């Protein structure tokens, strides 16, 4: 589904990703672990197409297509979703309007008609309820006044509504208490299917107790230095990055 080959990315003139290779197949969950500054978030933002992340070499293919040719919103239309580490607050725009505009934009990209307001309300209420989000929060401005956990939960509701092929979740577990972590993990697991793939970017192993990865990668200084099964996460937790790498 996703093939990254020798990816080099500069941010503000500094090279952050220095030749990264990664392949994620449909039906797989991959975890990328690494310390702060290793380039994990840069990888996530580059897949999503943030414009101040400059790809100087290498390629990203998504289902055989050159992803780097596509604008961020087109990538979403193709089925990519980025869960933000720090979801953005947007005063004046209600969550409901935002999500409905997003869903209908993706449908339009794929040549489908808009979803009716009634059908959309049914969908979003169901997804919010599954993820333990109060229906009142849907009416509020996007992320404004939300706690850290509520923001992450809101990301999961958006993911569930957009139902992507590939979800890239950037530190979705950070800032969550144990209950929120469990609910968010359920949301991620619900998205786990034969035809989808998930890329978890995380600092800690604890999320991986709830969402079992098929492959764990260790990222240091802009490269993946080691890959293995889920036992690698436990090893990292025990020994630290320096020894494992």
């Amino acid at each position, binding site marked *: 589904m996703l093939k990254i080959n020798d990816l080099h990315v500069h941010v503000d003139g500094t090279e952050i990703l220095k030749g990264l290779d990664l392949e994620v197949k449909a039906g797989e969950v991959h975890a990328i672990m690494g310390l702060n500054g290793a380039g994990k978030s840069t990888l996530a933002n580059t897949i999503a197409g943030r414009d101040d992340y400059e790809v100087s070499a290498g390629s990203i293919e998504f289902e055989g297509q050159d992803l780097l040719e596509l604008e961020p919103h087109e990538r979403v239309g193709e089925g990519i979703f980025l869960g933000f580490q720090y979801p953005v607050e947007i005063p004046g725009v209600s969550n409901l309007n*935002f999500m409905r505009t*997003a869903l209908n934009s993706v449908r339009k990209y794929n040549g489908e008609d808009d979803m009716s307001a009634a059908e959309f309300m049914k969908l979003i209420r169901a997804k919010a309820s599954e993820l333990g989000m109060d229906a009142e929060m849907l009416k509020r401005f996007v992320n404004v006044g939300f706690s850290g956990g509520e923001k992450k939960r809101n990301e999961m509701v958006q993911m569930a509504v957009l139902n992507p092929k590939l979800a890239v979740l950037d530190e979705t577990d950070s800032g969550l208490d144990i209950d929120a972590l469990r609910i968010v993990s359920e949301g991620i697991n619900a998205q786990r299917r034969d035809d989808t793939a998930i890329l978890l970017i995380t600092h800690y192993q604890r999320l991986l107790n709830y969402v079992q990865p098929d492959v764990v990668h260790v990222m240091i200084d802009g490269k993946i230095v080691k890959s293995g099964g889920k036992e690698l996460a436990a090893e990292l937790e025990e020994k630290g990055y320096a020894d494992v790498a």
Partner: protein
Amino acid sequence: MQEQLTEGYKAQAETLMGTVPGADSLRQSALKEFEGIGFPTNRTEEWRYSDTKALRAEEFALAGTSTSAEIAAPLGETAARFVFVNGRYAEELSDLGDLWQAMPIRPLANHFMANPDRATELIRGNDGVSLLNTALMRDGLVLSVPAGIEIDEPIEIVHVMDGADQAAAHTRHVIELGEGAEITVIEHFVGDASAYWTNSVLQARIAEGAKLRHVRLQEEGEAATHTAKAYVNLDAESEYYCVNMSVGGKAARFEAHVRVLGEEADAHVDGVSLAGTGQNHDTLTHVSHMVPNATSDQIFRTVADTRGKTAFQGKVTVVKDAQLTEADQSFKALVFDKTAEANSKPELEILADDVKCSHGATIGQLDDKAIFYLTSRGIDPVTARKILVEAFTADALVNIENEALRETLVERIRVWMASRAENVGAGE
């Protein structure tokens, strides 16, 4: 130049003597003062951000009649519609509905027939622009809403300019609300591409417990100069809600002068300016709290595209006796790039010691992070910007209770944003 202009405007005023009985001496004193001070320039503090070059360069004749004007569509359901073409009331284009059954409606010319003393209540003005309005006013709407009358649907005043190159319309509207009366007045300004000047004054008196909602939509032609002032007096427990939207014109300015004269009165002056390339939109407000225990609130949002310019000068005066006044002011400006300009000058003149007054002003660009967040959910960048600008201006429109009318104004913002996207090319 000033002398030449003054002579020209004097000659214009001569032709108007007697057209509004009772107002001739007022015209003359206004002219005399105009002769002394002329048009404002950027050296005049209140006009420092304005563009008055067109006014100072050449005389604007009195606009002639037109029968071919394209009349803008009504802004939703209305109780009555008064159309002024080139500054003159156009009866055949207007629709009085049943309004005449509820209240006296008169043209300005007949206003003072019954009671000439009332002519002295006309505001004369304090700068070259408003003085000329007084000197050259020819027509306008005089509405006297009897006590207790409430009209739900808006009363629309349409100002149309057609084929009036280098010509002007000086309209004067007078609106009086009796005790407990309640109406909504929409003023809609439109015009063709000629270099005309709209110079309009609306004065309103809101009696005890009455409520005036005043919505302005300024969509003048691209070469137009627009100067307009609202002078509003509020008695006890009365309410004034003004929302001004500026979209058109080359140089456009709106002033609201609100005097709070009765306790527990509540004044709101809000506005949205959308200044495209080469446009100058300028707003000045002055809210004077003359008595204790009253409130006022101002919310202004301006957006300036490449080489567009917006300005907000907001003054609040609280006299010594006006204790327990609460007055707030919020100004936020968006600029699309480095060539766009936004200016703000809040001014608080507070002589009472037990008041709550606040003001805040910010100027900035659209948040890149917010744009990326929206696009990362599948929303294209043009729509993302539209959503953010609409959200940015929303606070200034919340006081429009009439949902359909508010939606009409929001739609103007969407259309304006859509035309930006065409100019700058989709995607960036």
